[in-house]
């Protein structure tokens, strides 16, 4: 039995894997693996967002979770940027940027977005903050799902950076050297 070739190092595939889950294997010509890697990672990512809402990714209030979620790649940073800039506002009491609570609305006071308390009539009309944050166990599962996506993407990134020679598509019989 011939000795398998040493594990190669492919920085281009590694770079592609950082940009989007599965793109590294696309560069390596392993199309099926690329597709399923993307389905696995992005499936966990979007499932987390589906159950926890955009609040499942929060670099300021859930920083430790965010470190794991960041391993998914630019998608996490894009969602976090949207969350921080489009859904949060400043608390006039503490001066801190935070998510809204029921009975508040996000308004622009001219220089920045702030939380303003709603009247009873406005609450009855259905007004409120732009998103409903996840609470308790559901919020934890949502954040965990996205962290799992990040950890899974780390394995996929390493596999693209240092591809397993056994996974390389074999040349077709009679296809030359």
């Amino acid at each position, binding site marked *: 039995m011939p000795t398998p070739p040493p594990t190669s190092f492919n920085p281009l595939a590694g770079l592609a894997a950082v940009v989007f889950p599965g793109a590294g294997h696309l560069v390596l010509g392993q199309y*099926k*693996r690329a597709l399923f890697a993307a389905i696995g*990672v992005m499936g966990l990512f979007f499932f987390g967002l589906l159950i926890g809402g955009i609040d499942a990714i929060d670099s300021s209030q859930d920083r430790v979770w965010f470190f794991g979620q960041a391993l998914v790649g630019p998608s996490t940073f894009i969602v976090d940027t949207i969350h921080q800039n489009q859904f949060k506002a400043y608390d006039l009491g503490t001066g801190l940027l935070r998510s809204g609570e029921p009975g508040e*609305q996000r308004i622009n006071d001219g220089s920045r977005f702030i939380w303003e308390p709603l009247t009873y009539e406005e609450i009855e009309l259905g007004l409120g903050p732009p998103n409903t944050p996840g609470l308790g*166990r559901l919020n934890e599962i949502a954040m965990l799902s996205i962290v799992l996506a990040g950890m899974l993407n780390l394995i*996929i990134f390493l596999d693209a950076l240092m591809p397993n020679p056994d*996974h390389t598509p074999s040349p077709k019989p009679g296809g030359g050297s």
Partner: protein
Amino acid sequence: MMTLAYTPFIDALGIHDHWYLLIVPISIFLAIGYKSVRCSDMNRFFREVVIFTIQILGGLLLLAIAFTAVIVVLLPLLAPMPG
């Protein structure tokens, strides 16, 4: 002004009574992603995904049974509560 209506991927789902069911899709996606790089023969991919999903769910079920046994049976024996 925003109104309080559910928007997918923006608002959290209110399924607090069925949280344990969420482990099933998470296990499936995890198995798909993991086996995409750990499956040596892609012709056996779906078979390996199914087996790995069952292994994850079975392992979690066994852990749940073990922890339930510790809390419901073992702990009351070791530290009986008055009454």
